[in-house]
């Protein structure tokens, strides 16, 4: 691999300086393991080949912050069962369209005649419901705190406009319970976290304090540019060198300490926390996901439609869970690049461009195959 993009980066000199500073400050006898939680960071790291600018003894572990990657197959099956019901228009973001359930993907279902439509915004789905009053429009919503406020505001608008034929099937999850599950996982050692950028713009800086305080793991909230990520890694290295474990905000130009109060308020009005939710690869995590409050039951697909009994146990799927937790690298999965490719994904990590497997496939595997 080469750093062919470095000249295009903003501040290439500062990038090299930061890289040199990381090399100077690391303990050469220690193997660092930092997790970038967010899939956007994973994508950026692979795309820019940032690992090449780091010392060999800093290992980046790719975290669970990719919404479709952590969506369990059971939820896909339930969603697709809705899509098959007569009169239903099933809507979802583009990433969801290629995620396999037991009986195929939403796109494949569409090819068989189901009314499946890709939307770019939850507001698009609401608009479809307004335009088609004779149909039942289901939004299969996914995402962390970055997206949940948008779904919440869309539901508030459905209430305001009294739209009777709009339903949300909520798969919204929260980033903190996932980080906590990873910190508490016995088979995983992480030295520090590169905190997500845009989810943190919503939740703010304070929720991470328990990770730093109670588990002794430094957290640095980071932007997405090469320089952002390198600076964040340097900040993590410095914290460890100085024996600190604190929450630092490298992305303060977008992430306010208190988060986005209006977004948190909208989420709180519309959603409540589920007692338990299944994450692909991570298993069941208590208090980790959001469902509609009873006040919004009228628009809750899980209340309006019967979906019980559709979900089955997670089938044996390569080793997605071990990759998600960073125990295995993508290419160490037995299916990687063979049964499971971006064209024919078996596991969800291969679907989204933010998934560790797809990112690794495009930016490492293909280049190696080409002798690059």
């Amino acid at each position, binding site marked *: 691999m080469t750093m062919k993009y470095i000249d295009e980066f903003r501040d290439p000199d500062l990038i090299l300086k930061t890289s040199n500073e990381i090399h100077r400050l690391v303990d050469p006898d220690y193997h660092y393991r930092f997790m970038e939680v967010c899939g956007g960071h994973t994508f950026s790291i692979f795309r820019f080949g940032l690992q090449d600018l780091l010392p060999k003894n800093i290992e980046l572990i790719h975290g669970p912050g990719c919404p479709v990657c952590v969506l369990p197959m059971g939820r896909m099956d339930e969603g697709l069962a809705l899509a098959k019901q007569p009169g239903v228009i099933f809507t979802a973001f583009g990433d969801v369209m290629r995620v396999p359930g037991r009986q195929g993907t939403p796109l494949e279902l569409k090819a068989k005649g189901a009314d499946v439509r890709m939307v770019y915004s939850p*507001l*698009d789905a609401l608009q479809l419901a307004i335009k088609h009053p004779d149909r039942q429009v289901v939004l299969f919503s996914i995402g962390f705190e970055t*997206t949940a406020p948008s779904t919440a505001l869309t539901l508030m608008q459905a209430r305001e406009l009294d739209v009777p034929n709009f339903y949300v099937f909520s798969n919204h999850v929260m980033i903190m319970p996932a980080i906590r599950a990873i910190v508490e996982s016995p088979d995983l050692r992480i030295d520090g976290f590169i905190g997500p950028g845009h989810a943190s713009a919503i939740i703010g800086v304070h929720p991470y304090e328990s990770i730093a305080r109670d588990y002794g793991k430094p957290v640095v909230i980071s932007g997405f540019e090469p320089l952002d990520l390198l600076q964040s890694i340097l900040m993590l290295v410095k914290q460890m060198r100085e024996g600190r474990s604190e929450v630092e905000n490298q992305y303060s130009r977008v992430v306010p300490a208190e988060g986005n109060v209006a977004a948190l308020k909208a989420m709180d009005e519309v959603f409540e926390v589920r007692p338990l939710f299944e994450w692909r690869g991570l298993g069941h995590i208590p208090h980790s996901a959001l469902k509609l409050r009873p006040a919004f039951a009228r628009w809750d697909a899980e209340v309006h439609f019967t979906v019980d009994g559709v979900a089955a146990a997670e089938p044996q799927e390569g080793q997605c869970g071990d990759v998600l937790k960073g125990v295995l690298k993508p290419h160490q999965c037995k299916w990687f690049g063979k049964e499971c490719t971006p064209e024919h994904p078996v596991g969800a990590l291969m679907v989204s461009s933010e998934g560790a497997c797809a990112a690794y496939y495009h930016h490492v595997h293909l280049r190696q195959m080409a002798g690059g």
Partner: protein
Amino acid sequence: MCLAIPGQIVEMLDGDHHYATVDVSGVKRKINIHLLKDQGIQLGDWVLIHVGFAMSKISEEQAVEQLNLLSMLGESEEAMEEVKGYQFDDRQKV
């Protein structure tokens, strides 16, 4: 997609300031600005857009950097497709 899209507010669309028109690299679309109402969002401001909603107020310099970042990541086209794809713009009063 975590990589938000930068745009500039070029028109306020209703008295309550739920909606505004943004300009993203020359493409104009309606977006929801409710989440930034408390921050006194106004004409000419730059914002980061995610799934049809303005999520954060940013500086013009950051907007340019974010566009560069999308371009370096090879995501510009996808971002423009998203903006062009918003279908909720029927100019309804909400």
